[in-house]
């Protein structure tokens, strides 16, 4: 620091500025700490980045849209340039959406950018969650960050849905009506909440303005806060890495943030931005002018929510519709309550999974090396079952389109999906677990006896054998580097009693780890190599 003034003279403007900042806010110290932060390199670590960058695009395009959108439900008569709506009665919100599309320069492109990046944001976040789940990256110390990420996913859904409802067109109005019905299906408080939310009977005249406040202030602010926490915790925990030679739970192997990842991530941002712009400029999304302004009387066939709400809509469609119970003067709408409970329960299980698994396995250690999905067969199988369950619910939201486009009966599509919702997750669980165990056995085989080389050799006595090539040390490291968990036994506590909790935990633990393939030990490896010196 003593030579700072000399440096500024030598280095010109850039060094001068750097020095100016350093003397005032200590930029050098910050850069030294952050710039030398190491990140491992793997394509699957960039999925969260896709979500982050699409959120930035959302903020930019959304700000543009707020300049022109008017969130009011005041009725007007359309007098813009779009012919097929001329003279139609509509709300100011819908009219301003049409104006953004047709009369604001670049407005339609920005609307499409905003909508496509919203779909992408939630999807990329979901895919990132799947990566974290299947590699066990949610284990200690990252459980809280899993919850934060989960909150971001749910906030993404909330942001998406409130935005979907803003244009006040027929499609979004139909969607809101379904939400209204679901709220009203909640016993006792449902009708009150609906009345409060819509300011009277649906649709009222205030819902668009209320959703707008949530959509442009509360939800994005919360998303920003949670993103900050999410990234801050990544810095605190350091990034996880896949197993390999030299990669341990107490280190991170990779490249420094500056300059490698600053350049890479910066470039990647523009790639994501570019893909969104390309799609938004060539493919239309939510052509609201086709749907007409909202009016509670018409309901359009093929009304669907955006994809991330699809699993809830599917749950609603797949539940048998006659499940209504009369309790005296009150109707208990189980046909609405069951799908809501199923949807919420599914999300709760997703949120709490890290804690459930930690309790079952009793694993209190820190983990920074990721699991290969096959090395945690039960977790991978649970994940596969969850993905299939979600996917069937999701397909349930498109029953009508499946029926018409594949020329099937709507009723039979519904029935098949109802059966699939129960049968397929179980099948996925069993198949995935067996697959994972088989892959582990194959890994063992490769470690002990080497890789099949495809070279067939004829022995002197006439027998044909295939030569197995031994694998190199680095590959072997990846194949043997996992923990051999054992089921926990129910042990008596200090008072000499085996508690019910202990028994449940023991049975859960044996469910998790009873079927297992142990990693190859050095002794086994040595034995395998010593007695197989000859070809085999």
């Amino acid at each position: 620091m003593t030579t700072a003034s000399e440096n500024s003279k030598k280095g010109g403007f850039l060094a001068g500025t750097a020095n100016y900042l350093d003397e005032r806010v200590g930029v050098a110290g910050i850069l030294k700490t952050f710039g030398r932060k190491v990140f491992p390199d793997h394509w699957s670590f960039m999925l969260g980045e896709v979500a982050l960058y699409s959120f930035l695009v959302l903020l930019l395009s959304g700000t543009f849209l707020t300049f022109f959108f008017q969130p009011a439900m005041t009725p007007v008569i359309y007098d813009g340039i779009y012919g097929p709506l001329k003279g139609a009665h509509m709300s100011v919100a819908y009219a301003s959406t049409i104006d953004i599309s047709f009369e604001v320069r670049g407005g339609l492109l920005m609307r499409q950018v905003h909508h496509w990046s919203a779909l992408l944001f939630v999807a990329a976040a979901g895919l990132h969650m799947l990566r974290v789940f299947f590699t066990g990256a949610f284990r200690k110390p990252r459980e809280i960050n899993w919850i934060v990420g989960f909150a971001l996913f749910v906030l993404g859904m909330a942001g998406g849905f409130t935005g979907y409802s803003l244009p006040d067109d027929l499609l979004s109005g139909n969607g809101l009506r379904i939400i209204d019905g679901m709220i009203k299906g909640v016993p006792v408080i449902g009708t009150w909440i609906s009345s409060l939310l819509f300011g009277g009977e649906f649709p009222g005249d205030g819902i668009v303005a209320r959703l707008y406040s949530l959509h442009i202030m509360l939800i994005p602010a919360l998303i920003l806060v949670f993103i900050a926490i999410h990234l801050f915790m990544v810095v605190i925990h350091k990034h996880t890495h896949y197993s390999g030679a030299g990669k341990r739970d107490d280190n991170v192997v990779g490249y420094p943030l500056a300059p490698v990842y600053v350049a890479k991530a910066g470039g990647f941002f523009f790639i994501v931005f570019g893909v969104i712009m390309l799609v938004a400029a060539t493919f239309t999304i939510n052509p609201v002018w086709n749907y007409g302004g909202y009016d509670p009387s018409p309901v359009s066939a093929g009304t669907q929510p955006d994809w991330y709400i699809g699993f809830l809509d599917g749950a609603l469609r797949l539940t048998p519709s006659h499940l209504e119970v009369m309790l005296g003067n009150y109707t208990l709408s189980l046909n609405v309550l069951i799908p809501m409970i199923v949807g919420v329960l599914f999300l709760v299980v997703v949120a709490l999974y890290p804690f459930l698994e930690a309790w079952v396995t009793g694993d209190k250690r820190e983990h920074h090396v990721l699991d290969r999905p096959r090395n945690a067969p039960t977790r991978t199988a649970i994940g596969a079952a969850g993905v299939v369950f979600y996917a069937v619910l999701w397909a349930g939201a498109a029953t009508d389109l499946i029926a018409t486009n594949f020329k099937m009966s709507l009723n039979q599509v519904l029935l098949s999906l109802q059966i699939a919702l129960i049968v397929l997750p179980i099948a996925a669980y069993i198949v995935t677990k067996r697959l994972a165990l088989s892959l582990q056995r194959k890994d063992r085989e490769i470690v002990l006896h080497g890789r099949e080389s495809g070279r067939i050799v004829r022995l002197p006595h006439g027998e044909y054998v295939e030569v197995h090539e031994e694998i190199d040390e680095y590959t072997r490291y990846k194949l043997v580097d996992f923990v051999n968990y054992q089921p926990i036994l129910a042990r008596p506590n200090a008072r000499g009693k085996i508690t019910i909790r202990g028994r449940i935990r023991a049975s859960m633990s044996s469910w998790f780890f009873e079927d297992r393939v142990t990693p190859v030990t050095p002794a086994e490896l040595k034995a395998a190599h010593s007695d197989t010196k000859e070809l085999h």
Partner: protein
Amino acid sequence: MKQNLKNARRSPWSAIAVILAGLILTGSGFAAATASTSAASESPYTAGQVEQGHKLFLSNCASCHGKNAEGTANGPSLYGVGAASVLFQVETGRMPGAISGPQLEVKPVQFKQPEIDAMAAWVASLAPGPAAPTAAYLAQKGDASRGGQIFRINCAMCHNAVGAGGALTGGKYAPALTNTSAAHIYEAMITGPQNMPVFSNSDLTLADKTDIITYLQAVQTNPSIGGFDLGNLGPVVEGLFMWIFMLGGLVLITMWLGAKSN
């Protein structure tokens, strides 16, 4: 003479005569009234067309609709369905039906136009029914905006707000209206083909129908303003497109970026 008249009035026959007269009067009056409504549309077809239509009917349609178009277990009676039904069903290729199923499919048209007109002529000659639309209804000079509103209220629950079609129960469906001519839209509304209800002129006035036709034709001829429309099927297709092409493409790019460092 006076006495005779009085006697005749008192005669038991007089009551019968009065009833008879009353019946004749109301009967012919009713006949005249109903005739005036159906006679309003003078048959536009020639006797030769009717003759040809009958022959075509016997060789192509009678196996299901019966030799006298009285209907069988496999096909309905054609009395009163009118020329409009024949034109709609045969011109869209739905009739003659290829297979019996929940609904007749659109397929390549099986007859030449004069043959279709002849069959329409014969069916129209059986009993009064909806006639082919006149050019005035098809001119698309209505109010598209009003037509859109009427369409969304009356038609969108089956045909979708954009006319992309939709599913009905048990394999039936409301077809897409993205490629339907003005005449066929009109004929469908007045005849209610297959699972569609009839929209008589007391449900939707002729002006309403003209507006709907104008709207649907405007939607068909308008290009998709925001780019490729992905079939206009709404959020499901948009979601699939985003997952497969946007996120799928970005995942491929991440793999490329991840591979570079090795």
